[in-house]
């Protein structure tokens, strides 16, 4: 299997007032296509910052990041936008569904920006596959937390990304909904999708092939 994510001595510093924060220090890691990685660690350990670097939504202060063979630290803002849209899918704890759009429209939303009209037809299919065939035209306010997260997963998948990044995807869900989401991630990974997930939930992390422990911006252990 080829390397799809590679971080080389990545550091990320930012300022909060007069204080310099070292969010990530000398982080190196790699993931191969089809791998399932979990990143765990206490609050403030730099998990989300790491996910932001891998998701190309922020650039590191030092080091290099190669995604699918591309050094993303050398890309311009518009190149990063384009790269992100075709390579990475995001799932967040808070779903971020637009309240005025139906489930189907929310899933189609990324296609509005990528202009992949052909992918819009996949939205319906994805929602049905995730068990939301009878919820296509429901607005987020009419859906349960688990259903909203499934819509968010469908939205992350509509542009057929190579990597799925999830930040605490079960953080706002009850245990039954969380299990359902875990099953979906497992199924997606089994179908060949590379999944990288940030979580506090050790049960969720335990289904990953590799767990990275993060503390004070450094990887302290790999299992």
């Amino acid at each position, binding site marked *: 299997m080829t390397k799809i994510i590679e971080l080389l001595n990545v550091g990320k510093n930012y300022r909060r007032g007069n204080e310099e924060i070292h969010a990530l220090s000398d982080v190196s890691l790699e993931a191969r296509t089809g791998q399932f990685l979990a990143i765990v660690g206490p609050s403030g350990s730099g998990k*989300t910052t790491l996910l932001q670097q891998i998701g190309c939504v922020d650039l590191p202060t030092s080091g290099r990041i190669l995604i699918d063979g591309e050094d993303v630290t050398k890309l311009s*803002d518009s190149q990063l*936008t384009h790269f*992100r849209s075709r390579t990475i899918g*995001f799932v967040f704890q808070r779903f971020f569904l637009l309240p*005025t759009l139906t489930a189907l429209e929310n899933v189609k939303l990324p*296609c509005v*920006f990528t202009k992949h009209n052909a992918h819009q037809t996949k939205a319906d299919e994805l929602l049905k596959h995730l068990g939301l065939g009878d919820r296509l035209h429901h607005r987020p306010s009419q859906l349960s937390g688990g259903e909203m997260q499934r819509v968010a997963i469908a939205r992350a998948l509509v542009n057929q990304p190579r990597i799925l990044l999830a930040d605490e995807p079960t953080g706002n869900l009850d245990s039954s909904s969380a299990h359902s989401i875990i099953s979906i991630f497992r199924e997606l990974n089994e179908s060949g999708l590379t999944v990288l997930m940030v979580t506090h939930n050790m049960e969720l992390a335990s289904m990953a092939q590799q767990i990275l422990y993060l503390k004070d911006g450094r990887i302290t252990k790999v299992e």
Partner: protein
Amino acid sequence: MNIFSLAGKNLARHRIRTILTMLGVGIAAATLFSILSFEVGYDQALKEEIEGSGIHLFVSTEGCPLEAASLILHGGEIPKFLTMERFRQVKSAEGVKEAAGFLIFSLTSPEGDKVDLFYGITDEALKLKPNWKVQGTWFRDENSIILGSEVAKVEKREVGDKIYIETLDLDFEVVGILEQTYGQDDGFYFLPLETAQKLFKKENKLTAVGVQLADLFQLQSVKDRLETLPDVYVVTAEQINQEIMRFIGGSKALMYSMLLIALALSTLGVLNTVLMATLERQQEFGYMRCIGAGKKDLIILILVETAAVCLIGWAIGVVGGFVFSSFAENWIRQFLAYVPAGHLLRPNTQVVSTSLALTMALGLMAAIYPAFKASRVSPVEAIRND
């Protein structure tokens, strides 16, 4: 789904706010539409009135050109008169094709609640007022009277009726009724010139004379020739046109000030709404950046949303402008020192397109800052869980 349907859904999120902003734009657009229509309409109406009168030169006793115009076109009273001898001299002057004398008077009822306006004219007036259409006949004798359409309506008189005029304490026979001119002529009692001169004890006197020339190229030379006559003041139709335009310049400036205020308020309203909607959606924009929206996409989204508000607001304003044009016209008339006959608001395609272009341009200008702000949102904002 596309950027337009997405913009529409976003606007529907806060319906009341969107509708109120549209109404704000609509009021500004209606004001803009009405004032532009007035700009076109007033100039046309004035030109038509002066050209339609067939009068090339206005002759009166010394005074200002506006007075002369007002006297002949609409009536008015000044305590200075031309003599019939002067009229004959004007009429027989070289280069004059036609000339008509007018005597204009007003009388107030003993109770002081009514003012009757009288216009003494001859057959020659018809040649200088080609727009006049008289139902019935022209004057048959000294007791004949022709009523302006408004007077006929108020007095409930028809052709052939008798009419008692209280201020004169006399009976007349209504031989004709002037069809509506939408000008001050509608409010006059028209009498044969000689009758008017006798009744008002101004025998041999005229208020003003309208002159039509045989050859317009001789305008200046005829004017110079007539001005050699004593106590005579001569102005051209063009001078009157310019004077009137200058005279109402102040009223126009006032209207444009009101327009500027309406446009400024509307622009600020749009800016406020769009900025508020943008600030509320910072995290949403950040998330959109994560899923593939570029800075340009967010700018386009905000501009499309604003354009939709402005377009619908403009449509409301233009429809409102058409529907309430007669109300607006009556309202505008109150502010003007000189109002020509005919409609003052005359919208045309240029007015419609100019009002659309200006409304959209101002609205989109107001959206530039919010759009820029939306494009600056970092996608990092979306991933923060705090």
